[in-house]
């Protein structure tokens, strides 16, 4: 018997968790002598009330959708992929190679090329830990997190040497051909008399992220492979009984996961920076863990959670810009949201379950 209706599990619990995180954040802001109400207004105003704010919010959200989906897919096979950060960095390398060395005739083809490059490089970076887990039993959490550092070191090496244009003082690759630039929301949705999303980095890869959500939903809940991934995730002995190869599931699910994380680079590297820079991932790989956790590993949940975290990022930037609240405090607020929605899930869930049980008893 289910203890709670499904809507309470999916909607009510995250909302209450968010509310608790917001209250605690308010206390912290109060403690450093700023007004929480004003801060909240500023965040909402900067992130949601203007189209340019949305342009930033959705730009960040695009990153988080990809990394959130990456964590979610792996998690269905009970693989905890903490390597989204490194896989996204390698994805950036894939995008850069595709855009620097191939003379694409049109941005659509360039985007196709960079999408394939990003997915392939991200997947390849996940393949090694996956192989080590499947064949050697090396724990995926340990290996993927180590691979984040290796990825960072590798990119350091490439960007101060091989990929750096001669004479440049900056650890970054050459600019991509301007004709490869992805259409931004500003170009796509503005008309002559009504400019929208002015200056915001959100671009066409947001729709790639939406397509990825649909792809993951079909994969996990509609395909045979997804059925096998979930079966393996729930019970390894059961999978063995059904003739589902654990090695195959680990490797395939990690390849898909790494590929999704890598796709983030289409947004950041081709869409925004238009060249490969150091630290282009900005921790989005780790935020993906929180996004997947909050989104209950469901693509739709991931989408909503990613937009929420996009709001927190953009709102946080606004706070740092207009108030004396230091940027570090934004990290505190984000951490509180992660703490309440992820780690302290049961703190909200258990009392709520009791309330629902009591209500049901009264009815009967």
């Amino acid at each position: 018997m289910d203890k709670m209706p499904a809507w309470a599990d999916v909607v009510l619990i995250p909302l209450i968790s968010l509310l608790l995180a917001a209250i605690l954040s308010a206390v912290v802001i109060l403690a450093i002598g700023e007004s929480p109400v004003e801060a909240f207004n500023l965040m909402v105003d900067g992130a949601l009330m203007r189209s340019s704010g949305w342009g930033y919010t959705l730009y960040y959200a695009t990153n988080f959708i990809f990394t959130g989906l990456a964590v979610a897919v792996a998690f269905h096979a009970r693989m905890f992929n903490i390597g989204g950060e490194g896989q996204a960095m390698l994805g950036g390398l894939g995008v850069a190679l595709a855009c620097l060395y191939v003379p694409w005739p049109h941005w659509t083809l360039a985007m196709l090329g960079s999408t394939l490059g990003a997915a392939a490089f991200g997947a390849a970076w996940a393949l090694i830990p996956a192989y080590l887990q499947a064949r050697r039993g090396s724990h995926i959490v340990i290996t993927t997190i180590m691979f984040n550092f290796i990825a960072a070191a590798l990119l350091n090496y490439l960007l101060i040497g091989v990929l750096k244009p001669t004479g440049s003082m900056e650890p970054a690759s050459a600019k991509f051909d301007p004709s490869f630039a992805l259409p931004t929301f500003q170009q796509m949705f503005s008309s002559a008399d009504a400019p929208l999303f002015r200056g915001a980095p959100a671009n066409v890869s947001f729709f790639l992220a939406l397509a990825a959500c649909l792809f993951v939903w079909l994969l996990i809940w509609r395909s045979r492979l997804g059925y096998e991934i979930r079966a393996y995730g729930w019970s390894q002995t059961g999978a063995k009984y059904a003739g589902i190869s654990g090695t195959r599931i680990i490797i395939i699910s990690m390849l898909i996961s790494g590929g999704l994380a890598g796709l983030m680079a289409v947004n950041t590297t081709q869409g925004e920076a238009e060249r490969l820079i150091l630290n282009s991932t900005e921790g989005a790989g780790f935020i993906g863990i929180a996004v997947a956790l909050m989104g209950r590993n469901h693509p739709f949940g991931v989408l909503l959670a990613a937009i929420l975290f996009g709001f927190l990022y953009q709102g946080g930037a606004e706070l740092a810009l207009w108030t004396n609240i230091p940027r570090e405090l934004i990290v505190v607020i984000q951490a509180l949201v992660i703490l309440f929605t992820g780690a302290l899930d049961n703190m909200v869930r258990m009392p709520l379950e009791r309330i629902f049980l009591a209500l049901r008893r009264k009815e009967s």
Partner: protein
Amino acid sequence: MTDTAPAIELKGISKAFGPVQANKDISIRVMPGTIHGIIGENGAGKSTLMSILYGFYKADKGEVFINGTRTEIPDSQAAISAGIGMVFQHFKLVENFTVVENVILGAEDGFQLRPSIAKARKSLKQLAEEYELNVDPDAKIENLSVGHQQRVEILKALYRQADILILDEPTGVLTPAEADHLFRILDNLRNEGKTIILITHKLREIMEYTDTVSVMRRGEMTATVRTAETSTEELAELMVGRKVLLRVDKKPAQPKQVVLSVKDLRVTDSAGVERIKGVSFDIRAGEIYGIAGVAGNGQSELMEVLGGMQAGTGTITMNGEEIDLTGRYSDGQSRRARSIGHVPEDRQDEGLILDFTAWENMVFGYHRDPDWAAGPLMNNAGIVQEAEGKMQRFDVRPPNPHLTAKNFSGGNQQKIVLAREIERNPDLLLVGQPTRGVDIGAIEFIHQEIIRLRDEGKAILLVSVELDEIMSLSDRIAVMFDGRLMGERDPAEANERELGLLMAGISEEPDKPAWKAVDENLDAIEHGEAPKHG
């Protein structure tokens, strides 16, 4: 009757979980110094009732009297101080603690552990002598056999001065020898004036060991009778609510061509121990080949090799074609392609994905079948529809394909597995422990389905630790001991004693040392050592 107060008296206990009435106005009296059985199908409310008595749940209505005084039991601590001890079906022991450490866990007195341990050691020694409850106090739990772990649970309760002992399905995990020893212990406890409540679904245990018995059905107490004044048939009827066929009704087998042929099969486990040491047998179409034996003598490995879950060496032919025992084509998918159906021994861990819905489970293992494909995706709507029909035909309750598998009772879970495997109409069906933890009404149904499949001319391999089940279903019986088959018997001629000897590793009945050897072997098994060969 004596005029002493009953050790336990429950008056009008009711408990509901949401819309489900788990216990309805239940009253019982259990006199001190007796063994009282509570019997009922899965989901009848036995465990709920005992959980109320042990303080896990609070009753909505009703009163509890312990030794004549009204007692509130808000939590298990209160139950313990009221002298109630509980031995759960799944033991609650710390695996890497020693026996004595487990016994004092939660009952340590003082800051230092040493005096508590000394005290416990002394009292364990005393209890061991008094009740035949022998366990090495310094052995680690993980090194003990299941039977000994259960003794530790009983010792834990007695150490806490329990006068009333509740045992929940205590023999489910025990070998016959271990079960016999358990009942000797319970008998000793009764003679010392302790009160024992035995929850079980095994009618034989009720009939042999209890003084009084209560029957529960659908949350209600349908009867409380003296065991001496009732019969197995009557209890079964009270439990299920209708007449039950306890004997399996079947026509003689009509075996045809050989379907499965196993020659010199050997299996070595990952630790390098040889678990199957050269096994050969044939199964023909239209017969049930039963393999009896104490758990852990290689039956599980045999099922796993045949089901493609484990590699082996030797030759296995299926319908005349050799099947791979190692490598890529030695997995569950390839076996299913060869028309081998598999009802695994452990339905919760292997046969089902408990977090999948019933319809998802209905294609588990067959999910790559083109019948269920819709282009690159799965034809979910078609599978749901098919599952509905199968659930109807196998009387799975509730017949809702969207319910998660873990929400079905054990018997209904098993019916889902059977429906899936039998409806594929396999030439060979592997059936492991088909009725373990399954209630009596479902047992009857499951047995009938297996026999129906046989009568349709299919070959069936049955592995079970329930000797009764093997004897009543099989057309030929083999006994497995220490990785070998100890010869075949005709069920019409075999008797339980002879099979029991084979199960203990004695292949023929020599004149004198037979019983001694049996005892040694049983002892060895009980102590979790590798049994010696007779």
